[in-house]
């Protein structure tokens, strides 16, 4: 490093980053490919790879380095990583000032809009507009409403299913095999119909909106906007990434939580993903179910949002730990490119469909087997009591059973029940809330266990089950008592 550009880290006089760096440099005895000062900086930023390297090469220095790091933390209000980044950014600006002449230029419309998206006063209404037009109107109203009505209602129910049912019942004499293919829970009449006619159009519309948002550069601004709110629930803007990905698939998003800095952040975000973040298909079906019922939609969104914040806030209070730091490069806003948007949507839909198609067929086979062995009835009977307790008809039990297998499969089951007019508005809202908050699907449960261990994974599942039915019961009670939506 050129001596002229060596950063002298400032900070509290009695113990600054500079003081800590000098002490660490004195402690390090071995030779490294990079300077001791750089090693010291990485150690103060708690870089796991460098910590491991020091532990291997000179374990005797580790306790001293840890003591210096802990001592330093006491003298700063912000995390050390953040303080170092700030000073490096300032130094970079100083160097730039020396070597570059900046012309005074007008603030462009893009820059103005960029600032507006990140300011809490203007950013939140912009976010609301994106959610309303992007998710509610485009994905829910048009995609999950108009398009699904045509593909599922007209194409499948009126043409494809009757033709295939007649064909297979004429071809196969055995009732059990007929049921497996074209029965109530058949591979074609249920598995294929759910995958192709319901979930495929919904996720296509969802990923189309997601790709537009991604390509425009809005996501980093969203992270900056909600960083402050997330800090109240023990997270930082960095947690926006798993949360946003959770709307695509919560299982993959749970794996992404490993990139969060502290164990506390990882546990809180895993729990919130399992509890209050619906996956894309589940969200699309819920939007379709509540379409044309703005009050019901507001109650569903309000309750789920409130539970997200409340549980996050309480967990953060119960789990004391380090305050997370967050900073990221914010690229310029730009108009999304059609070819980019279409490519991204195509790849994501292909990925999602490849994953769900075999699983939906397998689910139909399992349900068929469960029906043959009567195990399906036993499980449904087990769920009947809590389902009735929250004010839902007994037949809604199968939705929750489907939901544990796959979240989107459960949502599709609820769509079927609602289509036949079996639910009142209150029951519809309660069912949507309970299904959103309900247990994660098997894949997400296994990921929770893999990432957080058996104890935490199981604990989260029991907690989520309790909260889902508890909140559904309370909402049903309050809505009936107040006579809202009746």
């Amino acid at each position, binding site marked *: 490093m050129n001596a002229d550009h060596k950063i002298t880290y400032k900070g509290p006089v009695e113990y600054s980053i500079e003081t800590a760096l000098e002490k660490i440099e004195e402690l390090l005895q071995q030779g490294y490919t990079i300077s001791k000062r750089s090693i010291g900086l990485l150690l103060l930023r708690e870089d796991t790879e460098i910590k491991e390297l020091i532990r291997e090469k000179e374990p005797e220095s580790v306790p001293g380095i840890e003591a210096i790091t802990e001592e330093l933390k006491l003298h700063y209000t912000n995390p050390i990583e953040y303080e170092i980044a700030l000073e490096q950014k300032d130094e970079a600006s100083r160097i730039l000032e020396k070597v570059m002449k900046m012309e005074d230029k007008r603030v462009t419309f893009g820059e103005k809009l960029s600032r507006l998206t990140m300011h809490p006063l203007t950013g939140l209404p912009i976010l609301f507009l994106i959610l309303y037009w992007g998710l509610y109107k485009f994905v829910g109203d048009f995609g999950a409403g108009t398009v699904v009505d045509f593909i599922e209602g007209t194409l499948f129910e009126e043409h494809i299913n009757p033709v295939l049912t007649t064909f297979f019942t004429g071809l196969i004499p055995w009732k059990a095999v007929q049921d497996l293919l074209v029965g109530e829970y058949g591979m074609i009449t249920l598995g294929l119909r759910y995958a192709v006619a319901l979930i495929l159009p919904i996720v296509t519309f969802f990923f189309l909106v997601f790709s537009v948002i991604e390509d425009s550069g809005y996501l980093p601004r969203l*992270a900056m906007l909600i960083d402050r709110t997330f800090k109240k629930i023990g997270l930082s803007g960095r947690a926006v990434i798993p949360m946003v990905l959770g709307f695509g698939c919560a299982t993959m998003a749970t794996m992404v939580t490993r990139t969060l800095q502290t164990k506390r952040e990882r546990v809180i975000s895993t729990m919130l993903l399992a509890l209050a973040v619906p996956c894309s298909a589940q969200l699309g079906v819920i939007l379709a179910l509540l379409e044309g019922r703005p009050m019901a939609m507001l109650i569903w969104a309000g309750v789920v949002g409130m539970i997200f914040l409340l549980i996050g806030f309480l967990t953060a209070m119960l789990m004391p730990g380090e305050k997370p730091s967050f900073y990221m*490069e914010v690229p310029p806003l730009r108009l999304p490119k059609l070819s980019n948007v279409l490519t991204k949507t195509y790849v994501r839909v292909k990925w999602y469909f490849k994953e769900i198609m075999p699983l939906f067929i397998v689910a139909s086979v399992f349900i068929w087997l469960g029906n043959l062995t009567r195990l399906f009835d036993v499980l449904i009977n087990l769920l009947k009591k809590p389902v009735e307790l929250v004010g839902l008809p007994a037949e809604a039990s199968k939705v929750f059973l489907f939901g544990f297998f796959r979240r989107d499969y459960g949502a599709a089951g609820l769509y079927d029940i609602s289509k036949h007019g079996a639910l009142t508005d209150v029951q519809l809202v309660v069912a949507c809330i309970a299904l959103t908050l309900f247990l994660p699907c098997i894949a997400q449960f296994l990921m929770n266990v893999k990432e957080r261990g058996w104890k935490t994974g199981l604990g989260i599942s029991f907690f989520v089950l309790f909260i889902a039915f508890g909140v559904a019961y309370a909402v049903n009670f309050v809505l009936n008592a107040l006579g809202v939506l009746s």
Partner: protein
Amino acid sequence: MKCSLCGFEFNEHEAEAACSGCGLVKKCDLIKCPNCSFEMAPEPDWIKKLKDRRRKKHGVIR
């Protein structure tokens, strides 16, 4: 390639390393950023070939 979320630049090998530990790694078409773990959709080969063909024919791609 460049992450569309955090702006981090990385190569294919780094992206592959970021996917370690994921059970779906073999059948997944997405690319994971090693810095922030955001999953991006890469351009499929057939679209690249299509663009190359157009480029050869017309010179530029809009």
